[in-house]
């Protein structure tokens, strides 16, 4: 039995060490940093400053706006990606098995294979108000043009569109997997009973897919909460602070201004919010199941 325990330790030991080194230690160190005014370029000026960073952060308008912008992206982004993902998954399921569907599905998932930073850089060119192909197509269709990233009124909306474009294929794949696992006999039985397509969706598919959708919601929630690459590549938080998000704010404090203590505080607050809302979401979805 003792040998059994040692064997188990030998197997999971390396993972625990890695977890401690790359997760636990950085987290605790960030926590420590958040109570200091440490700057990576200038060292400690006053050393331990207690809750000063947290107080300053709560009074910082840019940080508060970043939370609000992040929340907007999450609410609209997640709901759109789930809805759109469901509709497109239904379309793929309807023609499942055909070579054309397989081909289209392959092209459809290309965006999720591109790193977010590159996708962001590409989107800057696509959505360029003067040179971009999006405006060119809109003009050709007589639909006018938009400023996209170039206006505080449309920049966040553009971020939302680009994120939706890139990640809806991900939710589509998850939901499609769930749909393909729904027993066909349920559809047959409900058809015999006179159920319409919509009734089948609401009374068969959605209940059976709730777990899969729940996973998709949680994953997209965490991804959008952490969103950095796309905004860094495109707007850098502008125009003004209209696309400022939490991760960009934390990054700027730590790596542009080298106020590592203050940046760690922002990153920790972001982590706390992510964990809190993810666990609430998980609890809610488990209860629904």
């Amino acid at each position, binding site marked *: 039995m003792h040998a059994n325990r040692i064997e188990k330790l030998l197997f999971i030991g390396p993972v625990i060490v890695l977890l401690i080194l790359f997760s636990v230690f950085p987290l605790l160190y960030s926590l420590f940093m958040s109570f200091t005014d440490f700057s*990576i*370029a*200038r060292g400690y*000026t006053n050393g331990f400053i207690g809750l000063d960073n947290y107080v300053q952060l709560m009074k910082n308008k*840019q940080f508060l706006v970043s939370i609000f912008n992040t929340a907007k992206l999450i609410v609209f982004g997640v709901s759109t990606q789930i809805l759109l993902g469901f509709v497109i998954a239904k379309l793929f399921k309807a023609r499942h098995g055909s070579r054309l569907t397989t081909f289209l599905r392959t092209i459809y998932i290309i965006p999720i294979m591109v790193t977010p930073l590159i996708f962001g850089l590409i989107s800057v060119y696509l959505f*360029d*108000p*003067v*040179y971009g192909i999006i*405006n060119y197509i809109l003009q050709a269709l007589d639909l006018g*043009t938009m*400023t*996209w*990233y*170039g*206006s*505080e009124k449309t*920049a966040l909306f553009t971020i939302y569109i680009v994120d939706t474009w890139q990640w809806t294929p991900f939710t589509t794949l998850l939901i499609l997997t769930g749909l393909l696992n729904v027993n066909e006999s349920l559809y047959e039985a409900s058809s015999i009973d006179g159920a319409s397509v919509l009734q089948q969706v609401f009374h068969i598919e959605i209940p059976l897919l709730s777990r899969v959708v729940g996973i998709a919601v949680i994953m997209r929630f965490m991804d959008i909460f952490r969103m950095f690459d796309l905004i860094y590549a495109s*707007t*850098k*938080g*502008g*125009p*003004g*602070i*209209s696309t400022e998000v939490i991760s960009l704010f934390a990054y*700027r404090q730590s*790596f*542009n*201004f*080298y*106020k590592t203590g203050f940046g760690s505080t922002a990153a920790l607050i972001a982590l706390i919010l992510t964990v809190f809302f993810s666990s609430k979401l998980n609890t809610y979805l488990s209860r629904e199941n």
Partner: protein
Amino acid sequence: MVLHLPYLFKEVCMKRLSLSLVLVFILAGFVFANGAVEDQVTLTAEEEMWSSELHDWSGKTIRVMMIGDPWIDSLIEISKNFERITGAKVIVDGYGYDQTHEKEVLEGNQPNSDVDIIVLDAPWVGEFAEAGYVENLKPYIEKEDSDLIAWNDYFSTFRDVVTWKDQIVGLPFASYYVMGNYRKDILDKEGFDFPVTTDDVKAIAKHFSNNPDYPNMYGVAMNNQSGSAVGQAFFEWIYSFGGKPFMSMYPGSPDSYADMTPNFDSPEAKETVQFFIDLLEYQPEGALSIAWDDRAKYFASGYVAQAFMWSARMAMLEDPNKSAVIDKVDFGLFPSSEPGKSAPPLGGWLMGIASNGNQKDMAWDFIKWFCSQDVHQEFVMAGGPPSRYSIFTDPETTAKYSWLDTLEDTVDRSYADCRPRIPESNEIITTVGTYISRAMTGELTVDKAMKALNVELAEMLSNAGYNVSK
């Protein structure tokens, strides 16, 4: 006999195979030997001179960390000559602006570094010198022949930039100055002279925007993107509006950092921001997101009538592979609110030795070689930004670049501290840029934005130990 045939056949095949292999090896030997012969270095007379001046660094590798600006390819190409002369291998790593700063600060904080040469920006001079990221080059320079260094041949304002508290932080090999760039063809056609004042800029911008005679043309492209882009633009224009961002920071100041009380709510500062706002309507759609590359792109593509760009971009405008406006462009002195008040912005890059590097002598060899007059002339001919007065009298460069006379008129009018060269510089410029962008979007009035900016910077600089009046 019959029984031996397969054996004989095998014997013959093996012999033929062996003979073929020997022939192949001999031929390969000739090929590689010839290649090796071709690889033996044949140096020019100038390189022969340098080979006696520089050390033999065969088998060594030198790493350069720098900005990925348009002339990086020219630097890489010319560095091959150093490889030929010394036997060293030169590896150049180029990054975006923010990444260059990040990486250099992070690298500078390590006890040891693989990076030998750091190319740093003008505003980072104080930060890097105070933190000890780069060597003081004074002792290195003093050991050399003064004709080789030709210190006084560097532009005087940029010599000031690279000097921090009696240290020389790097050699000023890539100085930038902002000049006006104009579409001479259409300005002449419409009867405009190149703008001398900011009112002239506005008039030209207004004329060429939404003009049915010039469809798809805009009046101007400015650096408007939130953060460091428009923040830098503010520091480019404020002095030409007769203003000063901090109480002791102005051209001619005996000590630019004596009184760092922010002055962003002065009439001149507000006038500068209002100028940016007024020009928005004459710029391409989505103007609020325009940054350095976009500005250059719009002008080089023929979309705008005027732009005010760093001199590092000038070579691109005369490159047929990159510009649609060759032979249509003229250059002029940076405009000001009143005639004769032009204070052209100054920036650019210097080459320093990483303090925690392990190959400082080799780094110095590279720096003094690359920054020498002859190699600098080659660099400029290949598209690098001019940094020496001798370029203005060189027949090759003056024949190639039509904007050199404007640059010559510009260089000695600049102010070395046009952007603060202190450790807080990055934070100051980004904070300024964020507030100005909020004013440009209309989220805040200009008054409110500049007042709030003043308060925030006063607190920041006071906490950092600078002299700030209450």
